[in-house]
């Protein structure tokens, strides 16, 4: 079975488009497009909202409400929205199917980003926040220069779990007639072509893991070293560096 999956993945005819079949490359592009658009929209909604709620402490019920969204049965919502939206689009367009898919994926991606952003800002050390205000920073300066950088690790972890979920769930776009890597899983099952089905699954898993690794690499460089605690031994050992003594103390407490 494993060898037939490898054979399926290695067959160049499965990677390119033919008249009746869409190849892996095109489906991979479609999959990335669905996932990318959904993550971008979710980020644009959830990040500012999470920062606002965390900073002001107002509207915190929204976070709980967003978490309740996680309980929605994704396929059910997708079919419901498709039945409502698709008949409004006529002619050679798949807009009527793309919109429901994106709505469902955005609903899926918002809760982890929102709740992690909120929790990250909320849990910034009050002493740090007080010090920032004491130095004369305005509210927005405190939010953007102190609270946001300090909560970045949590925001990243929220975004990464949203990415994993969205990439894995974007396969349901194939439940309504759209492309994406889910096509191979659905078609493989219907055609009793199990190498195709497992091959599709392997591709989705590989895509999700690569995206996560990529984001992990971005996180390494985006998050301040003072927060992540990644200070080389040399710097920590330097007795005259103020930064080093502070972080050394921090490391010791951790």
């Amino acid at each position, binding site marked *: 079975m494993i060898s037939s999956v490898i054979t399926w993945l290695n067959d160049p005819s499965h*990677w390119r488009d033919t008249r009746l079949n869409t190849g892996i490359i095109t489906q991979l592009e479609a999959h990335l497009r669905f996932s990318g658009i959904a993550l971008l929209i979710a980020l644009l909604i959830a990040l500012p909202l999470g920062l606002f709620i965390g900073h002001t402490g107002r509207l915190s019920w929204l976070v709980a409400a967003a978490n309740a969204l996680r309980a929605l049965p994704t396929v059910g919502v997708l079919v419901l929205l498709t039945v409502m939206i698709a008949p409004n689009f006529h*002619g050679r367009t798949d807009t009527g199917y793309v919109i429901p898919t994106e709505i469902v994926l955005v609903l899926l991606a918002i809760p982890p980003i929102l709740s992690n952003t909120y929790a990250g800002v909320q849990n910034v050390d009050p002493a740090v926040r007080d010090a920032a205000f004491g130095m004369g920073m305005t509210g927005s300066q405190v939010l953007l220069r102190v609270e946001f950088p300090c909560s970045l690790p949590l925001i990243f972890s929220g975004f990464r779990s949203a990415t994993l979920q969205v990439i894995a769930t974007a396969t349901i776009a194939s439940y309504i007639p759209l492309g994406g890597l889910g096509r191979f899983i659905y078609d493989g099952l219907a055609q009793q072509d199990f190498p195709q089905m497992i091959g599709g699954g392997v591709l989705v898993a590989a895509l999700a893991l690569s995206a996560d690794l990529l984001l992990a*690499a971005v996180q390494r460089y985006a998050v301040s070293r003072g927060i992540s605690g990644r200070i080389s031994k040399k710097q920590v050992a330097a007795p005259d560096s103020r930064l080093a003594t502070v972080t050394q103390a921090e490391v010791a407490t951790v």
Partner: protein
Amino acid sequence: MKRTTFIAGAIAATAALTLTACGSDSSKSGTGSASSSGAGSTATIASKLIMGGPPEFKTRPDGLPGLQKNYGVTFGKYTVTDTGGPVTVSSLKNGQIDAADLFTTDPAIKSNGFVILEDPKSNFAAQNILPIINKSKATDGVKKILNGISAKLTTSGLSDLLTKVQVDKQDADAVAKQWLSDNGLATTGSDASGVKLTIGSANFPENVILAQIYAEALKAQGASIKTTLNIGSREKYYQGLKEGSLDLFAEYTGTILQFIDKTAKATSPDDVYAALQKALPPNLIALDKSSAQDSDAIVVTKATADKYSLKTIADLAKTG
């Protein structure tokens, strides 16, 4: 050190994905010419159309390969929708696809004015509806009643019944009774008195209606009837038929034949019926087949049919 291995891993993974992508990109040029040569200098009607249906229609012997073999029909593109469900219907209605694989009794065909393309070469195996009954229960009286039903059952008549149950949400039992009285079959008598029958049905509305029709007609003629409706798929209920826990079932000639004999090749109504009678186990018999069929069909919109003057599947292979 940990960090470097981590980053190296991330880079390797992305590189692997991009490399495989590039590797197959180069082979893409080869397909371009292949697909254009398929269309040829004089384009067929089918090559301008997008066909939609279930995923397995692409590979099934009576799906795209059968259409190509029997009629020389090759569609321009195939879009996977669903198995004769709402997505296929709305895609066809709204023009995302031009032709669809639907079931002949689907109420959506009539309500949307879709046109079924005739299948003179029987690409799709015949699916005449008929009663399969346990031999010990098939008395002359029972046979007469059931054959009487089959004589009156038509595809469009069945489609109307299905509309009543699926669209108008009427009760299947009431619809069955109404149909029997409309066709002069609701006569009471004693043709089947003393016979005890268990009637089963699969779990889709059409099969339930058929089981109710059989049940009501036999009941009116004095039989004592037990119904076990919505059992599930053929794998589940066929065993019961074979072992005698179910006595009567409404079946479809093509699929039941294919189920018993995977190598069956017959496609025309009479061939399938004859082959089925041979293939059934000794304790089961097939009574008369009705003209009603619930089979796959290539369906187009009225507008498409008029535009290309399409009547049969063979018309799709014409140039136009």
